[in-house]
C-alpha cells in the first residue's frame, strides 16, 4: 500500500506558482531518518508554501546542515539513529543558531514527559498531524 501511494505521490511536483511563493516563504530543514517521511513532509510543507532547503537523516548531519543553510525552521524527529532530537536542540541552542525548532515523532508528546517543554524547541507536532498550518500556529505562538 505504502509503495503504491509513494509512486502515486512522489511524481507530484509543486506548481510553479507555489515555487514563486516559496521565494518569500519560510525555509525549512527536515530531519528524520525515514526517507519516505522526509519526502512526504517536503511535499506537504511545500504545498503549503514552505521552502524546504535541506534534509538530514541523523543528528550530526542535522547540526551541520542547520549551521550551513541556516533555515528559519527545523522540523526535527525526536528519535534519531545517533543522538536524540532533544540533544540536537540543545546543541543548536548552544551554537546560537536563530532557527526555530519544532519536534516531531510518531509517538505523542506525553511519551517524552516534560522533555519537550524543557527543550529549546518552540513546540511539538505528532508526525501524522504534520501540516504547514500547524507549524505556522506554533511559530506564531512562539513569537
Amino acid at each position, binding site marked *: 500500500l*505504502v509503495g503504491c501511494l509513494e509512486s*502515486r*505521490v512522489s511524481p507530484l511536483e509543486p506548481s510553479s506558482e507555489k515555487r514563486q511563493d516559496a521565494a518569500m516563504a519560510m525555509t525549512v530543514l527536515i530531519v528524520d531518518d525515514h526517507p*519516505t517521511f522526509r519526502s512526504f513532509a517536503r511535499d506537504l510543507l511545500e504545498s503549503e508554501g514552505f521552502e524546504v532547503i535541506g534534509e538530514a537523516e541523523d543528528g550530526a548531519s542535522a547540526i551541520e546542515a542547520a549551521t550551513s543553510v541556516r533555515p528559519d525552521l527545523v522540523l526535527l524527529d525526536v528519535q534519531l539513529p545517533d543522538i536524540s532530537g532533544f540533544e540536537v536542540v540543545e546543541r543548536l541552542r548552544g551554537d546560537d543558531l536563530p532557527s526555530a525548532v519544532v519536534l516531531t515523532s*510518531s509517538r505523542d508528546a506525553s511519551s517524552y514527559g516534560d522533555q519537550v517543554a524543557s527543550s529549546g524547541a518552540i513546540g511539538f507536532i505528532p508526525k501524522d498531524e504534520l501540516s504547514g498550518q500547524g507549524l505556522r500556529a506554533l511559530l506564531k505562538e512562539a513569537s
Partner: protein
Amino acid sequence: MEAAAHASATRRLAWGAFIAVALSYAVGVVVEVVSHSVDLFGVFTFVFPLAGMFVLDRQPKNRIGWILMAIGMIAAASAILRSYAIYGLRLHPGSLPGADVAVAMLQPLWAPLIGIIGIHLLLLFPEGRLPSPRWRKVAWLGSVGIVGTWIFITLLPGIIDDPAFPNVRNPLGIEALRSVIPVLFAFIGLIPISIVASAVSLVLRFRRSKGTLRLQHKWVTAAAATVAALYALQMVVSVAWPRKGAGDPLVVAIVQNVAVFSFVLIPISIGFAILRYRLYDIDVVINKTVVYGAMAAFITAVYVAIVVGIGRTIGSERNIGLSILATALVAVAFQPVRERVRRLANRLVYGKRATPYDVLSEFSGGMSHTVASEELLPRMARAVAEGTGAARADVWLRVGSELVREAGWPEDEERRKDAVPVPEAAETVVGSDRAVPVRHQGELLGVIGVKKSPGETVTPADEKLLEDLASQAGLVLRNVRLIEELKTSRQRLVTAQDEERRRLERDLHDGAQQRLVAISLALRLARGLADPEKDGPLGERLDQASDELGRALNELREFARGMHPAILTERGLVPALESLAERSTVPASVEAAVDGRLPPAVEATAYFVVSEALTNVGKYSNATAVIIRAEAADGTLTVEVVDDGIGGADPSRGSGLRGLADRVAAVDGTLEIESPPGHGTRLTVRVPARALAQVTA
C-alpha cells in the same frame, strides 16, 4: 645462628643438670633402700625434673623448664639428706659424720620447694615470662621470703624441730639469731603472701588468655582440679571408713595413695601444656574429669550417708540391707544425676558455646521442622559460629562458577551476596581460617567457613564439628539452591519479558507506526490534490480514510505504550509515573523521591502496578483524587497509590493486580492492598532494588 648455638648450649646444660638430678635421685633411692626408709612420694617427685627436661629439650629458653628442674634438684637433695640422716642417726648412730648437719640442712628445704612451686611456677606459667614487669616485685618478694626462710631456719639455734629426728641440736645454729626470731616470721610470712599474689596473676592471665594460651591454662587447671577432687575424695573416704586399730582399710589406703600421688599430674600437665602435646583435647579431658569426678563423689556421698550415717544411728554399720538400699538409690539416681552433671560440665567447658552435639541436633531439628528455607542458612551459620566459638561463620552457596555468601553470623547485610570465584580447593575460601566443602552426591554445593578471633586457632574439635555439619548440610544447600535457581529463573523470565515488550514497542514505532504516519501524510497530500469541483466524492473518501487512520494510529500508540512505554525506557520511573498521572481519568499527583535510575525490572514492575492501580481507581473507586508516591531508600523501592474513594477493594477478585502480584513476587517484592470500606484504597509495593540490580545486571 647465635641464637641456635645458644639454644643448643642451653640444651646441653639442661641435659647435664638432668643427669645430675637423676643421679641424685638414684643415690637418694639407694640410700633410702639401705636405710629402709623408702619414701615413694619423694621418688614420684622425679616427674618434676623429667617434665622440666622435656620442656628444656624442646624450648631451651622456657624458664619453666629450669624451675621444674630446680624443684627436682631440691627434692633429690632432700631425699639424700634425709636418708643420710636416718642412716647416721637412727640405723647406725655415729657411723656417719655430720648426720646432724644433714638434718639441719634438710629442715628448711620445704621453703624453696613450696615457694618455687607456689610462686615462680605460677608467675611464669606457661611461656616462662612474667605477665608484665610489675609482677617482678612479687617474684622478688617471694625469692626474699624463700631464701631468708631457708637460711634462717638452717642457722636457727637449739633443738631441731623434727619429729623424725628428736633431740638433735642444730650444729649450724647461731645463738645471736635467737633475739631476732620475728625476722624469721617476717620471711616466712612473705611466702604465702607471694603465693596468693602469684595465684592471682595466674587467674588474671587465664582470663585474658585466648586460643592456645587458654588451652594451656586449661590443662593445668584440669590437673589441679583433679588433684583437689582426689584429695577431697580421700578425706571423705577417711571419714567414711575410719581407721580401726592397726591400719587403714584397703579402700582407704588405695584412695589415699591415689590422691597423694595424683600431684604428679601437675608437672605432667605443665609439660603437656607447654609442649602443646594433644593440647586440643583438653575440653574433652576436663569435661570427662568433671563428670566422672562428680559421679564418684556422688556415689561415695550416697554410700556414706546411708551405710555409715544411718548405720551408725541404728547401730549396725555392716547391715547388708543398707548396702542394698544405697546401691539401689545410686542405680536409680545415676542417670538423671549424670545428665545434670554432664550439662554442668558442658557449661563449664564450653561456656555459652553449645556443645558440638547440641549444635548438630539443633540443626537437624531445624531441618526436619518447618523452618523456612531462607532461614535455614542463617541458622546454620549461627550454629557453626556458636558451636566453634568462631568470630564469624559464613555459608557460601555455589552458583555456577561462583561462591555466593548466602548467610553469615554475625549477620552482615553488607557482605551478603558477596561473590567469589569457586576456588581450586574449597578449603581456601577468602576470609576464613577454615572452610569445609559441602557436597551432595559428589557435587560441590557450597562451603562453610569460619573465622576465629585473632590469636585463636581452629581446634580439631571445631574441625570435626564443621565436617559433621557439612556432611548434613548437603541436602539443605541443594534445596536452597533449587529455590534460588527458581527465584533467579523467575526474575530472568520477568526481565526477558520486559526486554521483549520493549523490543516490540520499538519495532512498532520504527515499523508499522512510521509507515502508517507516512500513509497519513500521503492521504493528506492526495486530499490537497483533489479538485473540490470535480473530485468531490474522492475528497470525502480521503477525509474518511485520514480520520480512520488517525484513530488507528492512536490505538496503536496506546497499544505500544501499554506494551512498554518509551518514557520508562528512556527517562525512568518518575517521568513515566508523571505521564501516567497526566493521562489518569481521576486527577492524580506524583510525589517522588527517587534519585537516578533503578534496575529495569524494578522500574517496569512499579510502573505496571501503578498503571493497573490507576485503571482500577478510574473504574471502581469513585475517587476524586489519587496520589502516587515513590521512594527509593535503603535499597528498597516503595511505591504507593492512595485514593480517597469508596474502598472495599478485594485484591483477590478479578483485577489484573493478581497477575501483577506474581510479577512483584518474581522480583522478590511484596504487594499489599488496604481498602477499608468508605476509607479509600492504599496499594503498596515494595521491591528490593539493590539485590535485583545484581540479578538483572
